[in-house]
């Protein structure tokens, strides 16, 4: 095979969607439910400087932290590949969030009704950043059951933000959440798609 430099091979264009929420809310489960392979894991090494500690007078300041992200791939067609990233939902990792949110199609925030407050930082973050997001209420057995308007109220969600029930373990259910997000994001940034 002869390669001509002027004839660059076509690379698919990559799209990303973030799956955020508190610890144990079902992020990795959702990524795995819709991806073509089991979730992969990548790590970013952060120095204390990047997590906001700036005390250079001590050797301790050179300590590093690693942040693990789970992700999965969905090959959409020859032209587009979709990546889903399960992001650590802690404020001190804002450094990682900023990179992930840059250029993202949008975010799913998983709300666990046993620990609803855990998703406040994610809601705040995506609101401030202007990243389109939807809230998916993950239904765990034995968890207090709220109806969607109650969760909306508790999270002080703007009426325009979609909120849906889901079971992150089920492919169909997780896929519906993603479809809700894609439609919401298209409405905000392009034009409605059906």
């Amino acid at each position, binding site marked *: 095979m002869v390669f001509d430099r002027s004839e660059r091979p076509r690379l698919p264009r990559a799209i990303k969607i973030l799956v955020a929420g508190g610890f144990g809310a079902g992020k990795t489960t959702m990524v795995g439910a819709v991806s073509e392979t089991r979730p*992969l894991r990548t790590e970013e*090494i952060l120095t204390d400087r*990047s997590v906001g500690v700036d005390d250079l007078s001590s050797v301790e300041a050179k300590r590093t932290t690693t942040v693990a992200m789970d992700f999965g791939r969905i090959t959409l067609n020859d032209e587009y590949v979709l990546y889903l990233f399960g992001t650590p939902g802690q404020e001190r990792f804002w450094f990682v969030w900023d990179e992930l949110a840059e250029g993202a199609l949008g975010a799913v925030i998983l709300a666990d009704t046993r620990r609803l407050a855990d998703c406040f930082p994610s809601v705040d973050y995506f609101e401030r950043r202007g990243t389109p997001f939807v809230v998916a209420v993950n239904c765990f057995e034995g968890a207090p059951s709220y109806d969607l308007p109650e969760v909306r109220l508790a999270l002080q969600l703007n009426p325009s933000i979609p909120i849906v029930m889901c079971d992150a373990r089920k492919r169909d259910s997780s*896929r519906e959440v993603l479809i809700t997000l894609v439609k919401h994001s*298209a409405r905000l940034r392009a034009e409605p798609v059906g």
Partner: protein
Amino acid sequence: MSATDGPTDEHWIDPEIIRPYVVTRGRTAPTRGRFDLISMALAIGPPPGPDAGLDPEHLSILRLCREPKSVAEIAAHLNLPAGTIRVLLGDLFDRELVSAQEPQSEVDMHDVKMYRAVLDGLRSL
């Protein structure tokens, strides 16, 4: 210190933390490099010979990228931090051994065609 001295608590450094720096010969990964986590890379051109001065990690990336792969996927398969992969991918890009997306060629979030493609793809899962 003699060669038989084991690491003391004070000098002990986790090899998992060191490996990325060894692989890149100390070149630190830029916080915002040329490639982001979803930049795609594809190996191009004939496989480099042993005189190309590449490290085993470079060759692993080339093998992996016979099909298009993202920085995140390469990092996961090679068990190295994404920042390290960016540095190595930069070496391969400079030698024209990979074709890669640079952040400028980001997907346009106002492109309705993109949203339709994602919807269709999700529906056919």
